[in-house]
């Protein structure tokens, strides 16, 4: 069959361009998708030329890095600190993460109630959302350093800074799971004349507790990583500080390696627990 025949034999709904049948038509979301992709690709190709590399000798640097990584990962050893100290420092890091998660979770619960669209007025919920995105926009380390000016460098500033981000994260997560509650359940209780707090305790909490536990533990996992960073960058103590000392003060890469392994093992354990919690409470779809 000739192509011209195809064009005529098909109804007007079929588009033909240059004698070829088109298999797709213009579609806005695909267009935006392709535009975004094109932008990212061009940016990735062009951007490296806009960076100032100073006088870096890439070859030597890579050579040294490989050497350093080898020292770090293949010959880990503790020299400045004992294994006991390392374990206590890890515990301190976990404690920092734990405290900021628990404090943050309690505050987030109340904020989330005030933020969920099915439980609170819109103006309140929007105010909290704006407040949260402001908190999130400032990196944790900056919050910690700002708190440190008044509270001094240390655990207080670190926990306050980390708690802020925890609140911003968890209140969003909690309120979203609150919003997923079947409206009929709330309505049914309201119809019996139940008080607002009864609804929270008897519908909202039981319906969402597994999600909340799962989100909270996930945040604890994140906070553990943040706590290491705060130890290194904002002198909050813990294993992060030891990491900073052994690399920037003693230049002892063997110890950096050993500490990294310690931190990694704990992180992997936390990840496994968090996946387990998620699977058991929510169930894998």
């Amino acid at each position, binding site marked *: 069959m000739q192509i011209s025949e195809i064009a005529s034999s098909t109804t007007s709904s079929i588009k033909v361009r240059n004698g070829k049948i088109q298999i797709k038509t213009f579609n806005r*979301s695909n267009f*935006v*998708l392709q535009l*975004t*992709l094109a932008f*990212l*690709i061009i*940016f*990735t190709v062009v951007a*490296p030329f*806009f*960076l100032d*590399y100073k006088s*870096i000798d*890439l070859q030597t*640097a890579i050579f*040294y*890095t490989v050497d*350093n*990584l080898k020292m770090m990962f293949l010959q880990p050893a503790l020299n400045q600190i004992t294994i006991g100290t390392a374990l206590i420092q890890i515990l301190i890091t976990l*404690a*920092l993460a*734990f*405290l900021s998660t*628990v404090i943050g979770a309690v505050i987030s619960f109340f904020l989330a109630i005030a933020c969920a669209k099915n439980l609170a007025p819109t103006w309140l919920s929007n105010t909290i959302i704006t407040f949260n995105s*402001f908190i999130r*926009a*400032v*990196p944790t*380390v*900056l919050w910690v*350093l*700002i*708190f440190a000016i*008044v*509270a001094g460098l*240390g*655990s*207080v*500033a670190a*926990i*306050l800074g980390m708690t802020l981000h925890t609140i911003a994260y968890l209140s969003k997560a909690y309120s979203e799971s609150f919003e997923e509650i079947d409206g009929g359940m709330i309505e049914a209780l309201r119809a019996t004349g139940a008080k607002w707090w009864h609804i929270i305790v008897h519908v909202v909490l039981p319906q969402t507790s597994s999600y909340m536990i799962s989100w909270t533990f996930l945040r604890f996992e994140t906070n553990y*990583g943040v706590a290491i*960073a705060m130890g*290194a960058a904002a002198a909050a*103590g813990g294993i*992060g500080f030891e*990491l*900073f000392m052994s*690399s920037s003060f003693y*230049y002892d*890469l063997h110890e*950096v390696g050993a*500490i*990294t392994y310690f*931190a*990694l093992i704990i*992180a*992997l354990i936390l990840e496994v627990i968090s996946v387990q919690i998620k699977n058991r409470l929510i169930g894998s*779809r």
Partner: protein
Amino acid sequence: MNAQFDVIKKKRIQMTIILLVMLLIVFGAKVLTDFSFMEGLASIPGTVFWMFTNLIPTAEAMENFPKVMERLWETIILSILATTTAGIFALFFALFGSKTTKINGLLALLSRVIASVFRNIPVVAWALVLVISFGHNVVTGYFALFFTTFGFLVRAFMETIDEASTDSVEALNATGATYFQMVFRGVIPDTLPQMLSWVFFMIDTNIRSATLVGLLTGTGIGYIFDLYYKRLDYPTVGLITLSIIVVVIVIELISNKVRRMIL
């Protein structure tokens, strides 16, 4: 009736025990970290007051504006670059690691383990090691961000693939399609929007991480923050903080807009 009563009672005892254990851990953590709730609470009003009196950029601070912008631009480029390049690698690892598109079990396991290790090595560890050989250079920041982003995106992409494309993968395999036909015409079209959404999320996260990495490695906006923070030049510190807020919020707005259009 009695049995039901017992269940409620048992649950209550369970809850009480869990609560007590939690309180115990809180107390232990408090002692271990030398943290005081009162001190924490007391320093909040002071900090808020201090922020509003000291972190307001003055005319003097505005003179540093071009310098701040230059570093900020560096940080933005670095964050996007680290995310996009890591995304490309992550795509392949995710394809090999996903349940629906894996080639064989061993490769899948390997790819999951590698991703998990990269994800869980703290970004500061990378930064501190790389800075020794690369020095105070953008390359240090780039690699530190690249490694953690890679680890995170592999997991995110893998979950996206598992969730979105199990069915169409089955159908395409049944038509006799080859592996790459199945990936490019079945998996990618269905998952690309969600993956792009993760890439935006990571760019956003990386701008904040870049500040941290910059502090440690003397690059980007983190470096200049550290500089003025140590000089006690708080109006400039305020200016830097504000500019970070603006950038993060603008990127969030753009990515929300794009996400709405492509999803």
